[in-house]
Every structure is written in structure tokens, then in C-alpha cells.
């Protein structure tokens, strides 16, 4: 009897504890989500409101954009080459090798270009953005800015937002062009697809809508990367389980890269489904 009662008490306690934990977690993520949305609004407002300073934006375009070119060219080239290889083999089964040009170009322009560029930039620049802002937060540099009546959103965040939104489409364009070149090298140069067919199908099949879709995606991805990576760095001190010190920054940076990459793929689906 009494044993049963103890067991029951123990059980209810465990169950209550469980729900309490779930509740805590739910509230934490709700708060964090709310903070991030407000962060986005402040950042966008800070990006469009005068005064405009060009130098910080150019510096960020250099850091986020220019320094990513090498990685983008490299991944673009190999993505295009593998597309040429796979595409040639598959299309050959249907006797449609001539369509290789359009297949390579369309998959790059509509999907792979924006998505892979965004993933590479997240890994290269997104992580750097998050760590930089996180360290500024943890060493009271953001507090210092606020006390000097300098708006951190305007001073630190806005240049990164603008630079990411400008850089991503440009990097994507580079990725696409290099990728097509890679497809050409393998498809035409190595596997002997007819050069004229390669380019003719490409030119006749790639429509403005395809390029538009790629452009919309890359702009959105730029926004997502800047938003998630900088806001998670900015709120490092509010992270669950303590976002303090170097370890706090490293953990939050990892989370930011994962969340940003996942968001890119999720939003890719939704943008595609809206534009298709």
C-alpha cells in the first residue's frame, strides 16, 4: 500500500518535472525567437535609415564577399563538373546528351548556385560574424557603445546586413558562371557532348524567371545568414546554459551555423514553392 503510494508520488513528481522542463524550454525558445524577430526589425530599420556611411559597408563586403570568392570559385567549379558527369550519364540513357547544357545551367541557376553559395558563406563568413559580435558582447564592447549613445545596430549590425544582401547575389552569380564552365569542361571537353548543342539548349531553355528565382533566393539567403548569425552573437549572454566567455561564444557560433544552414534549406523549399 504505502510502497504504491511512494511510487505514485515519485511518478507524479517525475512527470511534473518533465512538464516543467518542457515548459521552461518552450518559454526560452519563445523568448529567444521574439528577441530575434525584434532584432531583425531593428537591424532592417538601422540599415535603411540615414546617415549612410559607405566605408563600413565596403569593408564588410570585402570580408563577407570578396574573401569568399576563392571558396565559391572552387566549389562552383567542382559542382559544375560533377553535374556535367552525372548529367551526361543520365541523359545518355534517354539519348538526350544535347540537353546537358540546359540541365547544368538550370540546376545551377535555380537551386545549387544560391543554396551552395549560402552554405559556403555561412560556414566562412556567418561563423565569423557571430563570433565577432559575441566577443564584442562578452567583453562589454557593445555596452560601451550603448553608453556612448552610439546605436550598436547602426554601427555594427547594419553594415553586415547590407553587405550580406549585396554580396550573396554577386557570389551566386560567380558560382553559376564557374559552375557552367565546369559542366562545359567535363561535358564537352571530357565526355564529348556537342558544343553547339550544349550552348544552344542552355540559351533557349534558361528564362528570365529562372534567373529571377536564383536572385530572389540569394538575396533572402543573405538576409537569413546576416540575421541569424549576428543576432545569435548579439544575444550570446542570454543563451541557455550560460553563453559566457570563449566557450559560450564557440557554442553559440556552432548553433548559429547549424541554424543558419538549416534555415537556408527550409526557406529554399518555401521560396521555390512560391515562385515555381
Amino acid at each position, binding site marked *: 500500500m504505502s510502497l504504491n503510494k511512494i511510487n505514485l508520488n515519485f511518478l507524479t513528481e517525475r512527470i511534473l518535472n518533465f512538464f516543467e522542463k518542457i515548459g521552461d524550454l518552450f518559454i526560452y525558445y519563445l523568448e529567444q525567437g521574439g528577441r530575434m524577430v525584434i532584432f531583425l526589425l531593428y537591424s532592417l530599420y538601422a540599415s535603411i535609415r540615414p546617415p549612410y556611411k559607405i566605408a563600413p559597408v565596403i569593408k564588410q563586403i570585402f570580408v563577407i564577399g570578396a574573401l569568399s570568392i576563392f571558396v565559391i570559385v572552387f566549389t562552383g567549379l567542382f559542382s559544375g563538373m560533377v553535374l556535367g558527369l552525372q548529367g551526361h550519364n543520365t541523359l545518355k540513357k534517354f539519348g538526350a546528351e544535347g540537353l546537358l547544357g540546359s540541365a547544368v545551367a538550370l540546376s545551377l541557376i535555380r537551386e545549387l548556385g544560391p543554396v551552395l553559395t549560402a552554405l559556403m558563406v555561412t560556414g566562412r563568413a556567418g561563423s565569423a560574424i557571430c563570433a565577432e559580435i559575441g566577443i564584442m558582447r562578452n567583453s562589454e*564592447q557593445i*555596452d*560601451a557603445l550603448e553608453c556612448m*549613445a552610439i546605436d550598436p545596430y547602426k554601427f555594427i549590425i547594419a553594415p553586415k546586413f547590407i553587405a550580406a544582401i549585396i554580396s550573396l547575389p554577386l557570389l551566386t552569380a560567380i558560382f553559376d558562371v564557374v559552375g557552367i564552365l565546369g559542366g562545359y569542361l567535363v561535358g564537352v571537353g571530357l565526355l564529348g557532348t556537342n558544343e553547339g548543342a550544349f550552348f544552344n539548349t542552355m540559351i533557349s531553355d534558361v528564362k528570365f524567371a529562372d534567373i529571377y528565382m536564383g536572385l530572389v533566393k540569394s538575396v533572402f539567403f543573405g538576409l537569413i545568414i546576416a540575421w541569424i548569425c549576428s543576432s545569435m552573437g548579439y544575444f550570446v549572454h542570454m543563451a541557455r546554459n550560460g553563453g559566457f566567455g570563449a566557450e559560450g561564444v564557440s557554442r553559440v557560433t556552432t548553433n548559429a551555423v547549424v541554424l543558419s544552414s538549416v534555415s537556408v534549406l527550409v526557406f529554399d523549399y518555401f521560396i521555390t514553392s512560391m515562385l515555381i
Partner: protein
Amino acid sequence: MDDNYIIKLVNVEKSFGSQKILKGLNLSVVEGKTSVIVGGSGQGKSLTIKHILGLMKPTNGQVLVYDKDINGISKKELKEIRSNFGVLFQNSALFDSMTIYDNVALPLRERTKMSEAEIKDTVNEYLELMEVRGANDKYPAQISGGMKKRVGLARALVLKPKIMFFDEPTTGLDVAMSNEIYRIFFRTQAKLGYTAIIVSHDVPKIFKLADYVLLFHDGIVEDNLTPEEFQLSDKPVIRKFVETTMGRLYSSEMEDIQ
């Protein structure tokens, strides 16, 4: 009581989880004077400064600066109030990816319409005043701790603040360097006439600068007295502080003089 209080904390409470740090703190700072905050480590001195700066919100109570509740005003009003502040953080909080020159120039670039030439003159003037030489192109990581404090001071002072906050300006510095900081303090306060709030462990030396001494103990301010009154107070908590920091001798000597 005179009413030229520039900062007022009314029954401020602050808890972190179940840990209550500030327990109904009342504090006022008189305009144009120097208030020195003393008290043991972890008593919430830096925390209180953060409340006044609007970097932290109290769990209960009010923080009034220029008679405005700093947590009940718009972002714009807060920015306006903060434009009167100069802050030397406990860890200097210099921008570590900017040079020393750019650190001091930043407030001028962002908050004034000065030309680069005027900015250059002002920055060099202040760095000279702080006796920081030949470090313009260095980064914070490349200069010594004492230099960082002085650069932090220059950065806090360039905009000629009306209220200066110093969080432990001399902790970790050698005696000569602390004296240098105090000299700079005297010189700049005479020049700019700012209200000063200084958190310090440097008792009794710091009493020489103080118009008022506030002792933090157990989440409240024990009293707001002049240094002389403070050293002669017979409140047990204050007596104990005076005796442990300045020695029995010192306090009884003062009594004899009286």
C-alpha cells in the same frame, strides 16, 4: 536635503534567479560633486553602475537620471541622457579590432560633425593629456593594462561628459600609475566640471577625491557621508569597514583630532 541630485535610485532591487543582490537600494548623487562607492567584492557596485547606465533593469524600484525613470523612457530619450555620460569600464572595454587612435576618435566620428582634421587634433590632445604617446597605431592587445585604462579614460572624456563613471580606475595598477590616474582625474574634473561616480577599493587614498562616500553592504547603501563624517561614523558597519581597510589606529587617530 538639497535638490540638485542628478541621479537617484529609489528602492532598487535586483535578483538573479533566487539570488538577491540589491535589496532595496537608495542612493543619490549630487550634481558637480564626486561620489565614491566603496564596499566589499561582490556587493553589487558594478551592478549598480550598470543600472544607472540603463544596461540592466531592476527587478523592482526606480532609477532616476535627470529626474527621468531610465527604464520608462523611449530609446531616443535614453540616448539623449546617455549622451551626457562618460564611462570607464572595469575592464576598459576598448574596441579590440580598432587602433588606439580610432578608439578615441570613434565617439567624435559618430556623435559630432567634426572634420577628420579637427578629430585628429582633439584625439591627440586627449592622448597627450593622458600621457599616452607613440601608441596611436597600436591595438588594445598590444598595450599595457595601465595604458588601456588611460586610453579608456581618453575615450570617455573626449565628448566632455557631464557625468563620469569610473569603475575601479586604479585596480591592478602600480602606485605611481594610480597616482597618475588621480592626477588626470583632478585635472580633467577641474577642466570639465563633471559629476563623478567612482567605484574603488583604494581606501583611504580615494577619500581625498571624494565629496561623498557611499558604503555598499548587503545589498543596500549604508550611508552617504562626507569622507570625514564617514571615518568618524559610529554605525557598526561603517566602523568595521573603516577599521578593516584603514586600521584601528587610523580611525582612533581621527577621533583624537576631533
